[in-house]
């Protein structure tokens, strides 16, 4: 039986014979701090973290370099706007990983990728089998704006699309500066209490301090009553605790397929909450990826939330921003119906102030 060392040597020779020599090697540092060297721009990429597939699609302006991905990445893409933009994605294999992010090494090898992205926070068991098979692996971690910027930088470098990556970073910078100029010096009293529900149907789980949701609630001029110093990042709470917090705005996650604001309005236990009485329950939009976690379209999320929390300040033309951003991100123009779908106009119809996102609204 060949040892892993022999196997990896064989794969290495294979890689050498198929690649045009080490002309312009690319060196990146992954988010575990390891140096990863590529022979040249990665053209065959396998992504195992679920949000990585849409990030690569954005960096590259299309799915051409995507050789394989997580089955849930694929279902999210195919159900979303990117599946409509790039219907050929349907043929990209997604059998490379099982649940728990354990890679199917042979299936990955069969795709002959020159770079595999894998989670870095789940321990060595999900990484080492790939490296032992001679594959080039870069690990990523998740959850903060800095880490998301790290993704963009690293993926831009690995694909040679550094200019595109820089533009994505600049866009984040300018949007952050723009929103901070408007919301930055809001006093506590002018900030509505906002709760983000990471889960609502199975249990009521809200995001606490240090989460990405907490970051953008603060950025967009709100405050998160669950973000008490020392509290856990994710908190399963009961209806009474919600009443004690009395949120003025409720944000619903885009992960639970059957969830909509109607579930909150229809729950008799929550009927007394300010957010319910004033109809300020909103489901977070779903663009090239769900807007709740860090993603390539986060600046649009920040703008959307600023408009939701502070309609009196909301002078941003979000629909126009989406069209402009999609033009250079994906090279595509969404239809008016598609923009309605991204902003979840149907689910959020009737919510206070949501008319501002309708296609007839004046920016």
């Amino acid at each position, binding site marked *: 039986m060949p040892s892993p060392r022999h196997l990896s040597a064989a794969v290495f020779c294979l890689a050498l014979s198929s690649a045009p020599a080490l002309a312009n090697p690319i060196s990146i540092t992954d988010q575990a701090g390891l140096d990863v060297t590529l022979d040249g721009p990665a053209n065959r990429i396998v992504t195992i973290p679920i949000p990585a597939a849409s990030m690569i699609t954005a960096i590259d302006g299309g799915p051409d370099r995507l050789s394989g991905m997580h089955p849930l990445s694929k279902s999210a893409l195919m159900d979303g706007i990117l599946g409509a933009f790039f219907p050929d994605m349907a043929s990209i294999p997604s059998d490379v990983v099982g*649940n728990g992010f354990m890679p199917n090494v042979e299936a990955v090898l069969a795709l002959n990728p020159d770079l595999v992205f894998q989670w870095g926070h789940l321990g060595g068991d999900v990484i080492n089998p790939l490296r032992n098979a001679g594959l080039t692996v870069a690990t990523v971690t998740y959850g903060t704006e800095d880490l998301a910027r790290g993704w963009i930088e690293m993926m831009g470098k690995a694909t040679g699309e550094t200019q595109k990556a820089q533009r994505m970073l600049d866009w984040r910078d300018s949007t952050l500066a723009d929103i901070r100029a408007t919301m930055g010096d809001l006093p506590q009293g002018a900030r509505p209490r906002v709760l983000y529900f990471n889960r609502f149907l199975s*249990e009521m789980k809200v995001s606490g301090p240090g989460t990405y949701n907490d970051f953008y609630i603060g950025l967009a001029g709100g405050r998160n009553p669950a973000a008490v110093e020392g509290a856990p990042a994710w*908190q399963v709470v009961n209806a009474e*605790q919600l*009443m004690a917090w009395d949120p003025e705005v409720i944000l619903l996650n885009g*992960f639970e397929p059957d969830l909509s604001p109607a579930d909150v309005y229809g729950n008799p236990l929550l009927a007394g909450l300010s957010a319910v009485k004033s109809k300020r329950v909103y489901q977070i939009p779903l663009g090239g990826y769900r807007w709740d976690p860090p993603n390539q379209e986060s600046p649009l999320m920040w703008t959307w939330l600023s408009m939701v929390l502070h309609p009196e300040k909301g002078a941003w033309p979000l629909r126009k921003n989406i069209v402009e951003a999609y033009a250079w991100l994906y090279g595509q123009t969404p239809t008016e119906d598609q923009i309605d779908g991204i902003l979840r106009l149907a689910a959020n119809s009737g919510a206070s102030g949501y008319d501002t996102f309708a296609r007839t609204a004046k920016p």
Partner: protein
Amino acid sequence: MRASAPPLIGGLRLPAVRSLVWAALFLAPPVLGLLSLGVGRYPLPLAEVLTALGQGLGISESAPELASRVVLLIRLPRVLEALVAGAGLAIAGAALQGVFRNPLVGPQLIGVSSGAAFGGALALFLSAGLSTLLGATFLFGLLALVIVFLFSRVDGRAPVLMLVLSGVVVGAFFSALVSLVTYLADPNDTLPAIVYWLMGSFATASYPKLALLLAVTVPGVALLVALRFRINVLSLGDEEARALGIQVEPTRWLVLLAVTAITASGVAVAGIVGWVGLVVPHIARMLVGPDHKALLPASALAGAAYMVLVDDLARTATTQELPLGVLTALVGAPLFGLLLRRAQAKGWST
């Protein structure tokens, strides 16, 4: 042997002590239930709690809207669910321990809990509603029981050792199926629902759930109480029971059916809450002795009180809900270990 005069305990005659114990047992569930209505994460003055309760019963003018919502829609169904489920799980445990003549027996040990857990996980996996959830927990609990029944029969009888060992085998099998379902579940959708349900919680308490729980638990408990004399005889051992004219097998399976129904309804509304059926009957046995005529009602009363207390802790200790199954195990396991050591020399150790 009978003493001519009852012995003195702490200066009181035994019958007096006994009536005190019973008075405490009967008073504990309603008193704790009422007190529990007064505690929660939302600060409410006691007066408003009482007004809201009075409004719910139609005997007082209407309370502030918020107070009545907290008390009548959130706390009351939850406290009642905890009382009923606690009583059911405890009496089911006491009956099981009697028919198996083994203090270590609980619904877990004969595989019923694992079967019910699989049924529930499967129902959640398929995004089914509450009645399907109950149906599936009951069906698979029963299926586990039937498999145990078939496995454990030797020469037309089911020796206790074979029953318990078959229970372990069947339990392991269904636990593996639960793992399989959680492995296959969608991490965005059904997986969190299954994981949360498996840890146990009354956080989703509602009146429809309470009605469903009552509809199954009350007849189940009534059946067990009606069978209390036979359970007494069964607990003497099969030979003695037969000698006394009891049909051992049918009676045993009737008890097991009631236990399965009670366990399944508890599991359907609150998820997997372990250790109640194991620990509470022990405490009850220390209070009223091993006679099932007294032990079964005492277990039900103590179980109701115990469950409502643990649930109070789960919903008020921190801003977060604490998982009930974890709390009952953290409280139950050490307590049970202690009881085992203390009781080693007497009664049940044969």
